[in-house]
């Protein structure tokens, strides 16, 4: 049974999601910030976390974006194979939603059309869109605007199978340690292990969109997530990189099958303004 969706629905939802994502944090992120502000012992760290809480409050009440880097829009579109879109191009509809959201929402236009020529596109398009076809007739849209302070600190390591789990742990710690204050800690660390060069990066980005209070369903990965969170917080980088026990709120790890000769590891770092809005059409 084919379900028809008008592309205007997509545009409207994307527009609203762009605005929502930049003024309000998801409940899991807010809870993580509040927990950390309570638990942090370092005086300056605690002060900074308090300022981040106040920042969030001002953002929502006075309609000022949480962070001025309202990001390059990253959209995950999971489309049931029984869905048919009418009224135009789905791709164009998503881009138009971003265009409208960033214009009407007083969000920053942070995209240049060509990476070398670097002329601002003035409407924060194009977005980066990842499509996935699933079963059924639902469409799930995830909007995760990505700021580049943290994005710039992200890394890919093409490890050897012989490097093993210890090599993976080293790679994650190296990326976090090298990022330090630059990624606006406390961070959320998204990790992709396996796949190919581009797949492990995508896994890592998808991991960032997973709520920070949710663990991997795989026991050995859940264990690794917890161990890496403890190790990262033991680095003592702290809020703003100025010391303390809250360096990361969560380490989320996604895995995929990989080649017998490979162990790709991608570490996609996000700051504490980890924005994701999910809607089902």
């Amino acid at each position, binding site marked *: 049974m084919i379900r028809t969706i008008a592309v205007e629905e997509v545009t409207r939802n994307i527009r609203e999601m762009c605005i929502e994502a930049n003024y309000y944090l998801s409940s899991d992120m807010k809870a993580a910030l509040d927990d950390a502000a309570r638990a942090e012992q370092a005086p300056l760290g605690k002060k900074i976390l308090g300022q981040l809480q106040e*920042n969030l409050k001002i953002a929502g009440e006075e309609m*000022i974006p949480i962070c001025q880097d309202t990001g390059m829009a990253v959209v995950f579109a999971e489309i049931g194979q029984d869905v048919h879109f009418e009224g135009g191009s789905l791709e164009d509809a998503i881009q138009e939603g971003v265009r409208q959201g960033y214009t009407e929402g*007083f969000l920053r*236009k942070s995209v240049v059309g060509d990476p070398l020529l670097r002329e601002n596109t003035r409407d924060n398009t194009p977005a980066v869109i990842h499509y996935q076809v699933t079963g059924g007739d639902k469409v799930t849209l995830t909007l995760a605007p990505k700021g580049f*302070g943290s994005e710039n600190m992200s890394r890919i390591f093409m490890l050897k199978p012989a490097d093993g789990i210890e090599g993976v742990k080293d790679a994650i710690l190296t990326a976090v340690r090298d990022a*330090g204050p630059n990624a606006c800690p406390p961070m959320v660390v998204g990790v992709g292990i396996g796949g190919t060069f581009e797949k492990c990066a995508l896994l890592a980005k998808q991991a960032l969109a997973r709520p920070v209070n949710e663990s991997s369903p795989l026991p050995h990965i859940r264990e690794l997530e917890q161990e890496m969170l403890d190790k990262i917080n033991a680095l003592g980088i702290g809020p703003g*990189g100025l010391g303390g026990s809250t360096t990361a709120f969560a380490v989320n790890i996604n895995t995929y099958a990989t080649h017998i000769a490979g162990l790709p590891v991608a570490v996609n770092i996000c700051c504490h303004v980890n924005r994701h809005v999910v809607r089902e059409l």
Partner: protein
Amino acid sequence: MDRYLTTPITEEIAQSLHAGDYVYISGTIYVARDAAHKRMAEALERGEGLPIPIQDAAIYYMGPSPARDGRPIGSAGPTTASRMDKYAPQLLDMGQRAMIGKGKRSQEVIDAIVRNRAVYFAAVGGAGALLSKCIHKSDLVCYEDLGAEAILRLEVKDFPVIVIIDSQGNNLYAKIQNSNK
């Protein structure tokens, strides 16, 4: 220790600041980031002057979100300073006194801070809404075509920053990193 400063941040004031000091800045600061710094460097290379008065200037590495009606500015938190490392030493040598951003600086920048008795402050990364409340006026200076990367002149009141690198070259990030080893 908390200090309240009014611009211009002179050499004398800069020399009195120490890594770790919590400072509230009031007065005039300039805003410039990647694209504006590149243009200024190119202007200097062509033998032209700078579009801002550089002596004792404080430059805030920032690109704001658009201001709603009746407000001077949108969200206005710091951007990563290391992207300006290529350009900062030349401007410091020409008299710039202060940089406000966040994150690590290169050895070349640290050396330029020391030889010019300047200072590098960090504002809290990700606190763009909170920080915008300390900005009472924002005027476009030049490079309007750069959009969010245009050079602005801000009037600020009690803008909170922390001294990361002082005029002696003491580096708060390095100090914290070493104490974690």
